[in-house]
């Protein structure tokens, strides 16, 4: 059971990073909305994972992305921020004693919970990402707009992907 979860997550890591680097790196609307769908991997890590492991995985994933994007540290910091929001949100909203479900997916947790969870995590990630990337006070309004548009785009894609797999599991 446990080894199956690990295997699924490793597979998910490779697939999502492959899509991100191959496909989505070249995609943008008017240079305003650029999706970063790989965060879905961090969103879907199992509930019981210790915090230290969560942070290490997030940091490693961020560094891998950084190597391909030539932005050392930016994605790593953003992923760590996402993990902090994730841990806080889960500790507030989910009963700590009994996790009935192994993973926080849309199918397991319901649309309402998952959409809010994804929204908060994605926006914290994008805020850190774009602010660190531009690092110029003069561009702040543009950076925030970019963060907003990209966040909405990523969120939409994440929800879409989740619905795709949600149906498959029901069968």
């Amino acid at each position: 059971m446990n080894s199956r979860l690990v295997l699924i997550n490793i597979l998910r890591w490779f697939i999502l990073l492959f899509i991100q680097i191959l496909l989505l790196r070249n995609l943008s609307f008017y240079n305003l909305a650029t999706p970063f769908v790989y965060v879905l991997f961090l969103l879907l890590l199992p509930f019981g994972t210790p915090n230290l492991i969560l942070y290490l995985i997030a940091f490693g994933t961020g560094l891998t992305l950084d190597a391909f994007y030539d932005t050392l540290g930016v994605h790593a910091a953003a992923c760590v921020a996402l993990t902090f929001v994730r841990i806080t949100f889960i500790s507030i909203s989910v009963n700590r004693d009994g996790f009935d479900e192994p993973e926080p997916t849309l199918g397991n947790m319901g649309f309402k919970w998952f959409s809010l969870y994804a929204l908060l995590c994605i926006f914290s990630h994008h805020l850190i990402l774009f602010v660190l990337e531009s690092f110029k006070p003069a561009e702040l309004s543009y950076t925030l707009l970019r963060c907003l548009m990209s966040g909405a785009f990523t969120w939409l894609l994440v929800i879409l992907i989740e619905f795709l797999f949600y149906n498959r599991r029901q069968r």
Partner: protein
Amino acid sequence: MRNLWIFINRYNAFFLFIIFFTIGIVLTVKNNAYQRSVTLNSTNEVVGQAYEKLNVFKRYMNLGQVNDSLANENAKLYSQLLKMKNIDSAKNTTVKDTATHQQYTYLAARVIKNSITLRNNVITINKGSLDGIKKDMAVISPQKGVVGFIRDVSDHLATIQSLLHKDTKISVNVKKNNALGSLVWGEKNFNYQKAYIKDIPNHFKVNLGDTIVTSGFSSFPPGIPVGRVSNAGIATGDNFLTIEINLFNDFSTLQYVYVIKDKFAEEQKALESKLPNE
């Protein structure tokens, strides 16, 4: 002591966040600094190899376009050659070997990774220090226009800090009156076909459609066409004009670039480092 440990353990999510986030920020700031020691970027063996493999497929997509541009360039060079052949050399009595005085040499390289969607875009090429590429060399496009500067070099690969990067500044001239300005990208418009020229003094008259060329001050050879003015005179409230231009170079279809070796670059750097300030 025990209470402290319990306290830290209770809020371990927060403390771990602080630790990892700080590491991330330190890496970011260090990466922005002039000296970069860590090579976790696309000049890295593994990452570079991956991009090289992916590029094999992508190259076929733009093959027609690249062919056209190469044919155009050939035609241009051929016509220049014809011009030289027609010079009546009988009149020249003394021949000076000018080959040793050639300041700039070009080196062709293939783009294996490119991006235009980010705030700070970096291009990776398939030539490195073994081919004689060094940091801060200028890079231009085969068609027309500038690309950027060499940023990091490994044995077989190099990254270019593209013009589409917040730290890139290139010294340029308005061709007709030699007004000096500096070429930057971004701040308001993040379209990869547009850029801005700042710090042109107010008394120069710049019209729509004027050609902008490199000035030769920032390691580019002088006179390389950069773009055409699309909006002259954006009011900034001080004594300088800000001009919007359309770039000649199309960053989205970049396949080959020329790296420019400047024979006197090191000599110039050594000489200028003797200046007291700056």
